[in-house]
């Protein structure tokens, strides 16, 4: 079985993401990376929890002054929905429907970009309305490191998926690129997993006080 072999719906394997040795290695290696990412984000969460609301003087904004339900809710819905659209993309990948997969990946990228835009607006708002910056307090440093690292992951994921889409746009699906698409979708879901904890621990717990 050649990675570059041309397939039809009838000959397309049931699990293209694990059909070749390279694919199996990618799959395993990527999950190992996600285990490491879990630790990375956990340390950032730990730092944030330790430094939450630690400000040098009373005129600095605290979590309950900064966060608002509508913005956090909108961002959450955007990212959660983009997770579903990438599930749809992988559904079409398994059914060997390249065009539909590209369409759903495009939707995923659009939703992710909207999320990122909202986050940029949010950071800008905190800096200019509240003077809440990376260097204004320990709270500020911990907040921007955690949420910014996640935003950086989103930006990287957008570039990654867009690159895959463009790079393979004329190639169609084969066993060389199917694992690449699959691994990118795993990454995208992982970003959403991290966001579930961010909206709960940072935004919702911040509003509780």
């Amino acid at each position, binding site marked *: 079985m050649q990675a570059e072999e041309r397939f039809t719906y*009838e*000959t397309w394997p*049931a699990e293209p993401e694990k059909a070749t040795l390279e694919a199996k290695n990618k799959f395993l290696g990527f999950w190992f990376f996600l285990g490491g990412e879990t630790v990375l984000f956990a340390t950032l*969460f730990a730092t944030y929890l330790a430094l939450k609301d630690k400000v040098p003087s009373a005129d600095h904004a605290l979590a309950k002054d900064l966060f608002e339900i509508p913005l956090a809710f909108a961002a959450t819905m955007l990212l959660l929905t983009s997770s579903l659209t990438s599930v749809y993309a992988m559904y079409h990948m398994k*059914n060997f429907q390249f065009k539909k997969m590209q369409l759903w990946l495009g939707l995923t990228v659009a939703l992710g970009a909207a999320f990122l835009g909202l986050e940029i607006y949010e950071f800008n708002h905190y800096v200019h309305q509240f003077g809440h910056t990376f260097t204004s307090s320990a709270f500020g440093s911990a907040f921007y490191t955690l949420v910014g690292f996640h935003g950086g992951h989103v930006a990287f994921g957008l570039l990654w998926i867009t690159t895959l889409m463009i790079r393979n746009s004329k190639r169609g699906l084969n066993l060389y690129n199917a694992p690449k698409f699959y691994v990118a979708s795993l990454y995208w879901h992982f970003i959403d997993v991290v966001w579930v904890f961010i909206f709960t621990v940072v935004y919702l717990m911040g509003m509780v006080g």
Partner: protein
Amino acid sequence: MANQQSSSGNPSVDTEYRRKKNAEEMRYQIVSFTLMIFLTIVSFVAVGYEGFSGWFTVPFIILLAVIQVIFQLYYFMHMSHKGHEAPSLFLYSGVLVGAVTILAFSTIIWW
């Protein structure tokens, strides 16, 4: 196994069965997505509602987040499928180290 057919040159794979199986899995994905949206809304409402104290709300929303992440991992990231023993080992090792770190930072830090 007919569905594990991975090479061309053997067209005996049951495409109808596979299509059905994929469609069935997609239905589960939609159900888990609906549940995830529902859990998210419950969390936001619990925080927006003034009647609950923080002592109830915080553990409650963390529990909902954990449930939601389990859906994400086992359905969206397919960890419920066969062949995910090594991924589980990697992920749960990460979770263990992460949990100890968070526990340490939120209990024994003095400032």
